């Protein structure tokens, strides 16, 4: 827990493409930014959902992948030295005398005159196992993340999934697990080929048991797992184990933002299209998370929204200053800020 709050001009919730470009637009006007994101790296959906998929509708960039877009934005905002706070979710928003206080799930506290919510479709959180009995096993026998490897020493573990997280943890826990098994719906794995090869080696050596099928039931008492029922093409089998690590990918949830007192329409935040301010003065929303008549969920629309937001946010950050509208092409002041003058 940090005791001293971080003081900055803007706190940006969400480090996806629009959150990143907000740093640029704010930076041109002299505002510095701290960003909070639940993922472990910048890029949001572009980096998490479709890093390798091509995007064709970024003006003047005929084609780039999701990851390339993120890399270029990171390059573009570098002169403004944003600070990133990853692996944490913005949890609380409170009004303070000079603006807002934002507290994250990791205990980081920010105080800023303005807050920008660029949270896309919400935070990425692990998908939970959709079985009615699952919740009684969660955090005791059923896990979606590994916080401490040591907690799994000697346990009889079943890993569920076929992607990189599933295989990375399978191989990582192999030296310390008791019995180890993997369940996946088909024989092909989408994880990195060398991980798949290492796993196949361990299966051949008899160290890892492999089940092709899907988990359909959990058995145990008081949150202590005894066995997992797996349905495969031949029928149903029972696999005894005391721990399940399930990696079904990530999903997006609006999360705590829903309780911040913002005026919502469904799971979107209503904004004024002249300023992208919400019903809370000094709290802005840009990108996929905001809504207004005619809203389109396009990255390019999000970029536009950050420019208008920055002009209004400026009045909260520097109430005594007058803002002069300038272009980067002609303003030596802006070019100095970009480090090119």
């Amino acid at each position, binding site marked *: 827990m940090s005791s001293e709050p971080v003081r900055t001009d803007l706190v940006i919730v969400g480090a996806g493409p629009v959150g990143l470009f907000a740093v640029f637009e704010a930076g041109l006007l002299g505002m510095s930014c701290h960003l909070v994101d639940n993922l472990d790296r910048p890029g949001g959906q572009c980096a998490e959902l479709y890093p390798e998929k091509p995007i064709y509708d970024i003006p003047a960039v005929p084609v780039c992948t999701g990851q390339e877009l993120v890399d270029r934005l990171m390059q573009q905002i570098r002169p403004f030295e944003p600070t990133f706070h990853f692996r944490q979710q913005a949890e609380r928003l409170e009004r303070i005398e000079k603006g807002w206080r934002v507290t994250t799930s990791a205990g980081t506290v920010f105080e800023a005159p303005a807050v920008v919510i660029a949270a896309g479709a919400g935070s990425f959180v692990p998908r*939970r196992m*959709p079985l009615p009995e699952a919740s009684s096993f969660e955090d005791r026998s059923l896990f979606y993340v590994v916080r401490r490897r040591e907690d799994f020493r000697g346990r009889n573990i079943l890993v569920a999934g076929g992607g990189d997280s599933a295989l990375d943890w399978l191989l990582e826990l192999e030296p310390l697990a008791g019995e180890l098994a993997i369940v996946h719906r088909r024989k092909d794995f989408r994880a990195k080929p060398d991980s798949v090869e290492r796993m196949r080696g361990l299966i051949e050596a008899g160290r890892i048991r492999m089940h092709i099928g899907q988990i359909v039931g959990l058995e145990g008492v008081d949150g202590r797992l005894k066995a997992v029922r797996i349905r495969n093409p031949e029928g149903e089998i029972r696999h005894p184990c005391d721990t399940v690590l399930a990696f079904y990918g990530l999903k997006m949830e609006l999360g705590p933002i829903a309780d911040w007192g913002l005026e919502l329409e469904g799971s979107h935040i209503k904004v004024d299209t002249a300023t992208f301010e919400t019903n809370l003065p000094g709290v802005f929303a840009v990108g996929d998370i905001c809504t207004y008549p005619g809203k389109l969920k396009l990255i390019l629309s999000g970029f536009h929204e950050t420019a208008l937001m920055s002009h209004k946010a400026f009045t909260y950050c520097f109430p005594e200053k007058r803002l002069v509208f300038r272009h980067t092409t002609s303003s030596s002041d802006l070019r100095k800020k970009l480090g090119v003058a």
Partner: protein
Amino acid sequence: MIDREGVEHELEGEVGWSLMEVIREAGLPIEAACGGCCACATCHVYVEPEWLPRLEEPCEDENMMLDEAFEVRDNSRLSCQIRLTEELEGIRVVLAPEF
């Protein structure tokens, strides 16, 4: 389309739309988080068996994403990857559970 409560909806789309788009445009509860680029599994549907042979086989990308879905069956498909054609007039699908 049959929703998660078992209610049947008759939906209309245009040739060239994806099935996910037809369901989403009708305002029915399909998450389709990635917007149809086959990067998530939140538009998972079960295609009624008699319609399966009339669809193209799922590509590797779609199969990879189905790995992240739950309760995947032999007739599981991602509705964003099913393009409407004249031949698919009358196709019946069931919305898979949300998770």
